[in-house]
């Protein structure tokens, strides 16, 4: 059994040098607001602000605006948190009309979201918790003790160069259902092909590789794991975000230290990233800081194996398409055009299935609107009362607006959120839901990884 990641962080200069200044579009967008401060009327108009500060009120991050000129504002945030903790209480959130102000406190780190979007409070909290995990993934849990010893310490220096990752994470949490569904999506592959890929991963595995992950964007192609170790979704998503935040990973093989908070928040593991094709990346997680060459060799072996069996081509083709589009769903369910979209989460596999957006969710604004409705319905179904239940109860929810009708069915084995046109009769909705479930049962083998190979 591998020992946990080295407890001594490598020279902290290391992370910075591995993440050169290639900002993704999403992160780059926020650069143009970097000079705003509280006096600027445009500053208030942003739909969602994010602030990170230390318990001493020191600014660490602000999504919009210049942290330094926002310093007094950060002081106010710190005062609010202390005011409440002085009453032997902990602040959660504040509501003012459509505005939600959410606070998450993690030791000496405070995270605040100010949102006018339709995202539910539960999801805003989730995003702030992820930001905390993101910081831990860069600095490990040691950041807590650094600040505990010296609350005025400016950790921005330590985080230098990681704005792109942070910005991308925020962007992706608002558009990718993996975060609020707490599971990932897969690339669709014929089950036999998937098995072959799994075998290839197994036979070419370097001894130092703990997790071997093949991905495309945020979608899983396959994963090989130790028999007794699961990879937590949160860790996986943070790594995927890292890989997707910077274009530098595409140009050459990389080997970077990363902390995986759920795996071990006190130390670093190393992550080897290599793109096998334009849209397919191999990520190998290891606890050995000197494993680069060995891992690189295993990568060569893998590519050879996959190419020889024609698998690489299959993978890249499959990765280039959405797992399912509405045309196929329509054909399979004979929904007569009433079904517009759906989300299906399989609890056992810990993955979800969703088609590409189709009409009328073509423009980003409409997609975002639907996305936030999904989040609200999910928050309802997973309200605190049911969250703690050991077995998910069976639930049915009907949601009807002039824009669409949505049926939600939850059970111990799956969740289904199905979107219909607003005039669709209830009977028809229920029928189509049943047809979706039957169709998924037949097809899910290709859309989910039901059993990950182990070593």
């Amino acid at each position, binding site marked *: 059994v591998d020992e946990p990641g080295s407890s001594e962080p490598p020279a902290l200069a290391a992370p910075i040098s591995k993440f050169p200044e290639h900002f993704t579009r999403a992160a780059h967008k926020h650069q143009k607001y970097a000079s705003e401060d509280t006096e600027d009327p445009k500053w208030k108009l942003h739909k969602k602000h994010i602030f990170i500060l230390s318990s001493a009120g020191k600014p660490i991050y602000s999504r919009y605006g210049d942290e330094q000129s926002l310093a007094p504002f950060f002081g106010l945030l710190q005062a609010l948190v202390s005011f409440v903790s002085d009453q032997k209480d902990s602040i*959660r959130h504040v509501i003012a*009309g459509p505005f939600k102000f959410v606070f998450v406190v993690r030791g000496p780190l405070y995270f605040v979201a100010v949102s006018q979007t339709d995202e539910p409070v539960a999801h805003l909290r989730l995003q702030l918790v992820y930001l905390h995990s993101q910081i831990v993934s860069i600095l490990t849990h040691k950041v807590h003790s650094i600040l505990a010893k010296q609350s005025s310490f400016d950790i921005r220096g330590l985080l230098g160069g990681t704005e792109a990752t942070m910005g991308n994470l925020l962007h992706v949490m608002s558009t990718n259902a993996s975060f609020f569904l707490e599971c990932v999506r897969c690339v669709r592959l014929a089950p036999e092909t998937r098995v072959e890929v799994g075998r290839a991963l197994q036979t070419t595995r370097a001894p130092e590789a703990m997790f071997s992950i093949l991905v495309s964007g945020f979608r899983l192609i396959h994963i090989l794991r130790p028999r007794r170790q699961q990879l937590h979704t949160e860790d996986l998503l943070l790594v995927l975000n890292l890989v997707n935040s910077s274009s530098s990973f595409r140009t050459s093989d990389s080997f970077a230290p990363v902390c995986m908070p759920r795996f071990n928040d006190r130390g670093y593991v190393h992550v080897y990233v290599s793109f096998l094709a334009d849209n397919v990346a191999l990520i190998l997680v290891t606890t050995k800081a000197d494993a680069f060459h060995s891992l690189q060799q295993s990568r060569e072996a893998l590519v050879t194996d996959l190419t020889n069996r024609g698998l690489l081509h299959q993978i890249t083709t499959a990765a280039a398409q959405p797992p399912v589009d509405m045309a196929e769903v329509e054909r399979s369910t004979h929904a007569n055009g009433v079904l517009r979209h759906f989300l299906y989460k399989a609890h056992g596999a810990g993955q979800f299935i969703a088609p590409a957006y189709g009409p009328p969710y073509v423009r980003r604004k409409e997609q975002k609107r639907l996305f936030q409705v999904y989040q609200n319905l999910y928050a*309802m179904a997973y309200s605190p009362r049911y969250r703690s239940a050991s077995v998910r109860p069976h639930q049915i929810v009907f949601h009807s607006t002039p824009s669409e009708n949505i049926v939600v069915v939850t059970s111990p084995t799956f969740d289904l959120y199905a979107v219909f046109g607003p005039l669709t009769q209830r009977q028809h909705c229920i029928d189509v839901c049943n047809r979706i479930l039957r169709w998924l049962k037949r097809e899910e083998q290709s859309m989910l990884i039901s059993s990950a190979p182990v070593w």
Partner: protein
Amino acid sequence: MSSAPAVLERFFVYNPRFGPKEDNEEQKILYHYPRTASLDEQMSHVGLSEAMTRFTETFTSDYPCESLHTKHSRYTYLQPEEGYWMVMMMRNPRVSSTSGDGKLVVVSREDELSDPVLRGVIEELYGAFRLFNGDMERIVQTSSVETLRRRLDLFYSNMLRLYEARSFSLVDTFAGVRFFPVDRTTYLSIQSFCNLLLETFPWISNLTFMYETAVIYSALDQKTLRTLFQFLRRASNPKGSLCAVTSPILVDHGDDSQDTNALSPFASLHLQSEGSFFAYGPAAGSESTTLPSIHIEDKVYDLVIYEQDGVRVAFTVDPRHWDGESHADLQRVAAFAEPEVKALQRLLVHLRPKADSGAKDSGFKFFYFNQCNLALKDTLSDKGVPRSVMRDVESLYERIHSMKEDVRELTVHTASDPWVVARKANGRELYVVLDRKYGSALEVDDEINRLTRELFSNVFMQ
């Protein structure tokens, strides 16, 4: 494992205008419950509220700060008049249990209390004060800040006793008026009685006729009717009578004395028959009448409430009319009304909602609220609906009203719990709990449609 319910822990009123400087800061506190809280404690809570409300203002001046959620508490904010802030602090319900190693673990249930419900309560708290005392600013202008402080103290120290957390419900949020459905003939009889009363006693105004805590006819403007109705509802005992319930209305004599005897609240003056009396009448025997004042628009009136066998007739009188003659005048009103009301009551007793009890048998309980006329029908508050189900209804309300989407229907069914259906359209809202096990969503849909047709086509509403 034991549980502690939610508690109204703190309620205070402040206006920074009255304590602008560092050295007289405490002056901004106009009222604080509990009285026993130290000045430091009071100031720290006011400080927190000021910080919160200013913080949200940084981002939006269009939407005032509404609520603060913390682990152990829930704060509700209201600025009913420019500069005047009211804050209500509830302590979340708690569950304590002993963990495996014998330690006591207390967990706060942070999501039990419903913001819209608390909002309804705090608005009612203000509304009632304003009804009986007028605007806070007006009091300050016409009298002094000290007078305002005294009035707030007098009013709320008693009023808050009526506000037990377990009685809070969505009904408070709707702040609707329950109407008693009558057929056309009965309505006309009641209206003709009211007209006759007004003709015979022209000094009566703003007449309101109620039966069993529901309104049948009222000349009051909607806003005042709503506030008065809410107050009477809260001040009535479970049987619907104002008698023998401690009243929050104490008269301010302008000095520090509180004349509790003069207004042993709801002391009744029994008249011809045992069943009829004036609430707020003089204490038995004495000649002087101390009627509560109510403020409608900018005018002040005396409020008179006459009760007889479940019928309640309320009206206002210009205080200048009395001229020391009130006792005699009211006796004449009672003498006139008594036989008429007796006759009407006999009609009304037969009209007691049977349609609703039919609904009860068929397994429905519901709230129906019409925003246009404030009509509220409520069988959901009756006993027998578990708190957890009510919480589900509140959650639906919250979700519907917090999303930007125009939600027309939201229906939830969990495992073996009842179906809970919320429908909203054209300013009307309907919340139904089906307490029978319905097999399918379609049955539920059909039943709700049937319920809507059956119940709401027969209701005679103004």
